[in-house]
């Protein structure tokens, strides 16, 4: 379990050939999908005319709230084998850009159940969420460990399920290390980035966060703290205990507030 909750920061630049070749394959083959897609639309249109005598069937409304699910491990520079559940930042970042750009999307709900993962990928996602102009609300369900913590606090308002936990611990390194003194310094700086992000985006103080990060006796043979629902709120890390119901209510409130502000801007 310990191995899973560690923040991974790979400090080597050996790119696996598979990564790039797979991406290329996907790009090359993507245009091949187009005719298939058009055929599908055409045949469904013919079906609709035959069945209902009309071309437009009322479909499900587009949701004005989109959700980002952050599950499993946050994948960094190295692709993990498919048996691992991972969240890939190269998927999430364009989705966040699309949410920002699409005028039909008014708010975003972020669902977290993650064991943590790559520090830089996690911080990249956190920064993208934090800089969204549209309202965002996050819910930690199950677990939002390690680098999941900055992602959870990046939203405008954060919720934690009563039973959910968040492990706060120092940045770790697994992999091959060349140059020990530089590595220690690099790790220290990396940790500082995580700490400053969390303290800027939540109500927890730096002292308290570091105290939780380096406290002994909470995790077996390790330093750090496993913070459960209520505690996360009492430390000021998370805004409120709750899950989907209160989160949607809060998000709708934020959307109304945001819309009001935008209309106000237009009047001026």
């Amino acid at each position: 379990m310990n191995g899973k909750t560690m923040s991974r920061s790979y400090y080597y630049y050996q790119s696996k050939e598979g990564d790039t070749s797979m991406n290329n394959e996907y790009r090359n083959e993507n245009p091949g999908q187009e005719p298939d897609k058009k055929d599908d639309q055409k045949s469904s249109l013919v079906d609709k005319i035959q069945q209902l005598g009309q071309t437009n069937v009322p479909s499900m409304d587009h949701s004005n709230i989109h959700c980002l699910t952050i599950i499993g491990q946050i994948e960094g520079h190295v692709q993990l084998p498919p048996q691992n559940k991972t969240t890939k930042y190269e998927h999430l970042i364009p989705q966040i850009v699309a949410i920002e750009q699409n005028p039909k999307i008014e708010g975003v709900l972020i669902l977290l159940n993650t064991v943590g993962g790559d520090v830089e990928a996690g911080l990249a996602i956190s920064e993208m969420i934090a800089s969204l102009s549209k309202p965002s609300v996050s819910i930690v369900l199950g677990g939002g460990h390690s680098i999941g913590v900055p992602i959870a606090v990046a939203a405008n308002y954060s919720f934690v399920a009563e039973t959910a936990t968040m492990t706060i611990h120092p940045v770790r390194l697994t992999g091959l290390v060349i140059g020990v003194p530089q590595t220690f310094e690099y790790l220290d700086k990396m940790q500082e980035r995580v700490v400053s992000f969390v303290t800027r985006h939540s109500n927890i103080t730096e002292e308290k966060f570091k105290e939780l990060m380096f406290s002994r006796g909470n995790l077996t043979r390790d330093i750090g703290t496993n913070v459960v629902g209520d505690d996360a709120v009492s430390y000021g890390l998370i805004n409120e205990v709750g899950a989907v119901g209160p989160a949607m209510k809060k998000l709708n409130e934020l959307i109304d507030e945001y819309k009001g502000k935008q209309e106000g801007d237009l009047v001026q």
Partner: protein
Amino acid sequence: MILYTILPHEAVFPPDQSVYEQQNIIEWNGVELLVERTSLTECRVVQVLSTNPQDYLNESTQPGQMLTLSTSPLK
């Protein structure tokens, strides 16, 4: 043999390249799907990669559903 290490499993036992090639991401009617190849023209949906909650209600792309492709995205 007991191997005690802080290295992640995949760093000690790197999986075969073919493992990575089984899964791929395709676009299906505007929705990105993670699919697993079952034959040259068929694949199974593993995961829906979308932020639109309505996309998850589409029965034809529920995880486990088989999709037939006129041109295989997986080679």
